[in-house]
């Protein structure tokens, strides 16, 4: 268990998240994939704080801010999804162009 292992784990998770963002067609699926990518970023923060930072407590605090921002993002995104479903009746990312105007 060293820093390289953690970085590789986080890269694998990032790739899985990008794969999900590209292949999912349901908008909620895309949001779940974004959560996986944020999780990968948090693992990166914690790994650097654990293995190489001088100030490890600051590295333990930063993921908390990432979590708060991702909670805000999910709240607004799911509100948009509910409004979109109510008005359009579908959640297809290929027809998101209908949203403008």
């Amino acid at each position, binding site marked *: *268990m*060293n*820093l*390289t*292992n953690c*970085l*590789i*784990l986080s*890269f*694998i*998770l990032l*790739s*899985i*998240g*990008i*794969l*999900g963002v*590209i*292949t999912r*067609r*349901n908008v*909620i*699926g895309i*949001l*779940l*994939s974004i*959560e*996986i990518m944020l*999780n990968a970023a*948090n*693992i990166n923060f*914690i790994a650097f*704080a*654990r*293995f*190489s930072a001088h100030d*490890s*407590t*600051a590295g*333990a*605090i930063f*993921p*908390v801010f990432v*979590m*708060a*921002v991702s*909670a*805000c*993002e*999910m*709240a*607004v995104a*799911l*509100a*948009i*999804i*509910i409004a979109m*479903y109510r008005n359009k009746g579908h*959640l*297809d990312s290929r027809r998101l162009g209908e949203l403008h105007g």
Partner: protein
Amino acid sequence: MHDLLFYGLAGLLVCFSTLVVMAPNLVHAAIALVASFFMTAGLYLLFEMEFVAVAQIMVYVGGIVIFVIITILLTTRLGENHLLPPIRQRLWGIIIAATLLCMLLFGTLTSLLPIGLAERPLPADTGSLATVGSRLLQPTENGFIVPFEMISLLLLIALIGAVVLARKDSANRGEPS
């Protein structure tokens, strides 16, 4: 022992994350996301960052995923997903993700960063609730009081925005018919 635990947690984390991305049913994907968040919390505990581990479980599992599952149940019938991607889109996704992964791995393994650092002993209560909490609210230059307050403001704005976006249009409902 720590190594074994790390590899086990990492393998399970990758498996559950793949399941989140690939599962045809969205409710199954959300439940796999819960499992992957628990694995991540286990990793944080392994790294002796207790506060982040508990925050991970409380914020993600207790808050965000519940919200996502409720939205899935509201908008689809038990998560049934009729919007399956065409095979070409899936192929392109795999190609792009694999290329990115190869580039990142190549860059990491050949870089001059001080990586490959082995485990080192942390000070006793680096990630504990008391240390993190007092650091978070310190008004000195080492503290995080300003971002903390900004986050509270951001949460309030997001809350109001979500309520405004998701409510029904009251313009044509309030009129007497």
